[in-house]
């Protein structure tokens, strides 16, 4: 009798059980390709797939078409993954665990390199294949795990400080702030203006998600601290890290940051800035185009400008974003895959992509091209932001590391913990996650 009840009720629960059941058979296996960086691993020519997130720029297909035109026997097909980074990673991980041939080239977020490399899901890139000197240095670092390159930087991303140039001018602030104190002083002047009534000073992305990890590690780095020290050990229980966290915590406490900012992800913070609620905002370069385009934007038409983000005693240190291209260890036609990667990351293709989408390229030469700078005046600022940027911790268990960072920052910003306690707990947590 019990069995029958359970069986009937069970139908509804299968979904839950399946959740855990799928992918359970992973592990085991002895695929080659780890460690050595020789070219033998890359064999086979023919059609290959390119797994990448949903193409919001609409330019990916053009890039692939350019390749397919000159390589009719080695056509590349785009496999479009979901828009959210988490869902992309999940599908790629599942693909790797079932050793599926479905994905050939993987577009990896810069923070996934360690996980994919350590699990041997992607192949190391042969050293002579890529001229690393031509790329911005942090982007190469982001594609490297324990001295070997596992991917080629495709596009990059760095934080920018968006500011209301119209109001700063009115308040007689000559140039954008370079330090947090300067920013605060500039804010005080702007908020004293009649136009500044009801505005808040600054906001970033402070909801409990990946964006907070970026903002938090940015604050630590901008105060002269580091999440991991040079030898890769956690180092957050320091006065510098405390100064960084306090910048966030005190901003909330003193109401310089709007109360609602602890719910902000990229888009809500952009909306707040473009509807005139903020004097300063930290965001990625993508916001620029939208705030100049959208009809709801009250800041378009030259009312805002961009600068490097400020720091404790001087310019701040951005968190590095972007995507790198890697070859799946289980792909067929790996030689073609590698060739396609070098093609897509070539100067010519990156230039085409920059012009079409204004996505940040990874080749430093493009940032100095006068024609491009004329078209995109923020390129020098962006280059500075990316060149000084620091990657988020390179950890095999990045998923746990980022959660630990979010936990610490969110707890402190919401007043559940003091900054000291939060950093002490974080240090202990990171030591558990990273020294293993």
């Amino acid at each position, binding site marked *: 009798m*019990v069995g*029958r*009840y*359970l*069986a*009937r*009720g*069970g*139908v*509804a*629960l*299968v*979904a*839950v*059980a*399946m*959740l*855990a*059941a799928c*992918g*359970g058979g*992973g*592990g*085991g*296996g002895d695929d080659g390709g*780890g*460690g050595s960086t020789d070219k033998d691993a890359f064999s086979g020519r023919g059609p290959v797939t390119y797994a990448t997130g949903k193409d919001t720029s609409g330019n990916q297909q053009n890039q692939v078409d350019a390749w397919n035109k000159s390589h009719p026997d080695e056509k590349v097909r785009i496999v479009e993954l979901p828009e959210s980074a*988490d869902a992309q990673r*999940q599908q790629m*991980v599942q693909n790797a*665990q079932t050793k599926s041939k479905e994905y050939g080239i993987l577009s990896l977020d810069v923070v996934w390199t360690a996980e994919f*490399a*350590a*699990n*041997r899901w992607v192949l190391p890139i042969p050293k002579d294949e890529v001229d690393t000197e031509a790329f911005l240095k942090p982007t190469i670092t982001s594609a490297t*795990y*324990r001295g070997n390159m596992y991917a080629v930087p495709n596009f990059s991303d760095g934080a920018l400080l968006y500011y209301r140039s119209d109001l700063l001018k009115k308040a007689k602030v000559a140039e954008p702030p370079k330090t947090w104190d300067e920013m605060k002083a500039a804010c005080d002047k702007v908020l004293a203006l009649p136009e500044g009534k009801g505005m808040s000073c600054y906001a970033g992305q402070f*909801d*409990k*998600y990946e964006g907070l990890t970026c903002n938090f590690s940015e604050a630590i780095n901008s105060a002269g601290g580091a999440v991991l020290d040079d030898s890769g050990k956690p180092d957050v229980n320091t006065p510098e890290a405390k100064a960084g966290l306090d910048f966030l915590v005190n901003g909330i406490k003193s109401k310089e940051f709007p*109360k*609602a900012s*602890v*719910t902000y992800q990229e888009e*809500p913070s952009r909306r707040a800035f473009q509807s005139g609620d903020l004097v300063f905002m930290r965001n990625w370069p993508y916001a620029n185009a939208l705030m100049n385009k959208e009809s709801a934007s009250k800041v378009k038409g030259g009312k805002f400008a961009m600068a490097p983000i400020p720091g404790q005693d001087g310019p701040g240190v951005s968190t590095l974003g972007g995507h790198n291209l890697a070859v799946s260890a289980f792909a067929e036609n790996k030689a073609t895959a590698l060739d396609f990667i070098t093609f897509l990351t070539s100067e010519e293709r990156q230039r085409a992509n920059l012009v079409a989408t204004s996505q940040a390229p990874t080749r430093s030469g493009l940032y100095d091209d006068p024609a491009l700078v004329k078209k995109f005046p923020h390129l020098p600022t962006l280059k500075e932001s990316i060149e000084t940027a620091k990657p988020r911790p390179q950890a*095999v*268990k990045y*998923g*746990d590391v980022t*959660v630990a960072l*979010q*936990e610490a920052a*969110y707890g402190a910003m*919401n007043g*559940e913990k003091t900054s000291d306690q939060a950093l002490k707990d974080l240090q202990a947590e990171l030591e558990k996650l990273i020294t*293993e």
Partner: protein
Amino acid sequence: MAVAAGAVRKAGKRPKNREEGAGRLAAILVSPTMAVLGLVVLYPIISALYTSLYREGEGLDAQGFVIEGDQFVGLGNYAAMFAGAGADRFVNALYNTTFFTVTTVLFETFIGVAMALVMHRAFRGRGILRASILVPWAIPTAVSALLWKWIFQPDGAANALLRTEILWTTEGWQAKVAIILADTWKTAPFIGLLVLAGLQTIPGEVYEAAKVDGASGWTQLFRITLPLAKPALLVAVLFRLLDSLRMFDLPYVLIGPRKDSVEVLSMLAFDEANQTRYGPAAAYATILFLYVAVIAFLFVRLLGADVIGAAKSQRKKTPRAKAPTATTATGGAAS
């Protein structure tokens, strides 16, 4: 099957052999169904149980590569859940799961019954009302969660209406309230509809007789309507119980992952699986499965909800006018 056996017995000739033959035929006819059930019900459960006894390799070798291969840990994943570093998180999730289930099902039952009573009355535009009350139920949960996310954002409708600035989607009681509100909005119509089906099987004469006897409206409600609609109501509540114990997409989309105030057991399982720790994820899912099974069993035993049409077979022995709606409702809800 029972009918066939009865007919055989009436015929009287060599009953044993023919009964055996009928039994064999029945077994053959039913076996494809059982095989499918075994595949889709039993296999995932057993597979989850099996997976929950293992842990994925997590250590790194000298070159920095993950040491491959699963490791048998026995009940280690379960032990870690109750006593290990993650115990607080598990207990919190268990509490949240229970809290949301109790509160939402309570609210939904009251509101759902009220809705059913209103819909049962004859008035103009009843069809439109019935259709419109179904709209929340028809919207996919993830979509309605997004809808409520907009309502609950700092400059959203909820704060405009209340003239406050409550940060609904941060940690705290307000996040719980947001979940309860959104869930009740979405699923009270479900209970309303099932109860309505029950109400419609109550013959009008019963009320006429009550009127003749001079029973008041309240007396009719508590003495006639609710008792007669009880089988349908119990089925509805049971389904809601099972559903809200498995709640996932509403808190995940509306409030967000890793927020302690609203983290429920299924989110925990999802999160572990997402970190490619399938062993612990399976253990969480198994615990949730057992929890749901126990609640369902207790509910059926204590309150006698007629989920699986037991009344039908009972009716054979003691002819009782138990509402046939229960089974139809089950069929409807399962789709």
